[in-house]
């Protein structure tokens, strides 16, 4: 694996007496898709907020490309090339693909007049880069006409335009159909092929298993498992592991069932 884009060391975050994160270690290398799995309340969203600089950790160290960064903030996160794509509310659905990609960063010339053709050409290039080609849509199509997976594609293309090195996808395939999920996976693989990294967050273990090079299982604010893809045989392994973590004694019914199958 290549350069280490970001590394979190022993990150703790407490809200009053309650620890949301109790010492998390997490790293993402260049050109790697890391799958972050965890139940509701495991601390996933707190971790995303810390990575994007919205929330400051109570203690711990953050290293960008091997160098510790002090005074971590949203601006520092952006400088490090970290972009978060939220599932909802990220796009202006009545606008064109072009307008969404260049939202807030319009390509303008003299006195703020838009360079329309340049924007269309650049949007086409970005969409091609993530593998979004279409016979139906053009960069000037309205985002509202696109399917859920394609909308994720627009959001990813926008993140790439913002020079993102690490794109955090927050539950990108939740509420998407199989074909739509396949589209998102296609985009993710293209982004990885271009040498960028992705932190793929989800609670559908099958989705995460299909796409990630490495898995990080979060449980009650702690990393319960870090495993390379080669170390995990199937999604069922991960599911069993997560059940063990969640119910250390084991749920009698579940384990009997598993033994019978074996």
């Amino acid at each position, binding site marked *: 694996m290549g350069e280490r884009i970001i590394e979190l060391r022993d990150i703790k975050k407490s809200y009053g007496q309650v620890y949301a994160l109790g010492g998390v270690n997490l790293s993402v290398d260049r050109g790697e898709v890391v799958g972050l799995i965890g139940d509701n309340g495991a601390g996933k969203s707190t971790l995303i907020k810390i990575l994007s600089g919205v929330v400051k950790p109570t203690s711990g160290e953050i290293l960008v490309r091997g160098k510790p960064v002090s005074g971590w903030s949203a601006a520092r996160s952006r400088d490090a090339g970290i972009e978060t794509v939220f599932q909802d509310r990220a796009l202006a659905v009545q606008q064109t693909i072009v307008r969404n990609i260049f939202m807030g960063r319009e390509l303008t010339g003299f006195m703020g007049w838009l360079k329309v053709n340049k924007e269309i050409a650049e949007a086409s290039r970005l969409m091609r880069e993530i593998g*979004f080609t*279409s016979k139906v849509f053009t960069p000037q199509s309205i985002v509202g006409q696109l399917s859920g997976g394609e909308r994720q594609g627009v959001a990813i293309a926008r993140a790439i335009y913002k020079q993102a090195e690490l794109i955090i996808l927050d539950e990108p395939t939740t509420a998407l159909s199989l074909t739509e999920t396949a589209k998102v996976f296609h985009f993710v693989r293209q982004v990885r092929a271009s040498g960028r990294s992705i932190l793929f967050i989800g609670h559908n273990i099958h989705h995460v298993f299909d796409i990630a090079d490495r898995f990080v299982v979060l449980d009650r604010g702690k990393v319960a498992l870090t495993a390379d893809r080669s170390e995990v045989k199937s999604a069922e392994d991960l599911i069993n592991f997560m059940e063990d973590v969640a119910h250390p004694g084991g749920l009698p019914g579940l384990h009997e069932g598993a033994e019978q199958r074996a």
Partner: protein
Amino acid sequence: MSKAMEPDLQTPLRRTSGQAAKEWSHPSNHWLRGFVLDNRASLGTLAVFIVMMAVFIIANPTVFSTWYLYSSVLTTLPVALFVVVPLVFVVTCGEIDLSFPATMGFASWVFALVVQAGYDPFLGIAAAVVTGTLLGFLVGSLVVYGGLSSLIATLGMNFLLRGLIQIINEGKSTALTNLADSAAYKIFSSQIWGIPVQIFWAIAFVVFSALLYNRHRFGAQVKVVGDNPDSAKQMGIDVKLVRVKVFVFTGIGAAIAGTFSVMINFTWWPTAGDGYLLPVLASVFVGGTPTWGGIGTVVGGAIGAVTVSFIQTGVVAAGLSGFYVQFFNGLIIILSLLGHKWNQARYR
């Protein structure tokens, strides 16, 4: 998975020869179809206008073939256009501004004061525009930074400003007799080849604003803010500043409109601008700008203003009594809204 994104099942059956090489293509590549799809709201408004005019002309062909009728509409229409167009920006941004009639009155009052004091009318226009800018900024700041509902706050500002004008002037008007000889009057309010010159300024304003709306960073940000303010904020757009700017734009438009209306009559009344509130609002929505924000059409709004201006003239000229005017106003508004509802889908 590495194939093209869309399976061919989704494309309607058609001849694809020669298009296979293109990565991006549109099912309706014909320029005319693309043009119609991109401008469906304004074209719909144009259709309403043409049908309405056809009905009027059939009802009374002789009156509608006289130039005087069109000349009178072309004199008053520009005043409306200068406020309808900025209001399209306001509504697109997800706000509303009901304070523009008072801004028209206030800014044109400043114009009247400067001209009456013997200064050049050009200076008066500049003073009026500055007044409109400041009032727009005041109203916008109140709504945006005060966190007030624009519907109620601008209604309040309309009463407040109009009240101030009334208190100070005690209902008295100002006659500007020396205006007719000035260069400013010739440039902004005379006639060329029998056509009122205001309409040329108004058309220039509409064209400039349409470009601002479709081809400028300002228009792009107004649309995005009206569409999804959370997303716009996340992408680094100063959402509040954009919102204030649309109110400032309306203030400037209202100042120009007020000044033009005073120049037509050579007189400033304390009620200047009052009658424009409802026709102008109707024009914006008849023009095809929806109420929910994010999209709109400047050219459609302008055609809407033309339609609304012709209703009154047309109903009377067609031989019906003045009592029919309001009824036809309402009829056109309702029919237009139904048409737009059918014509444009709302994407969520």
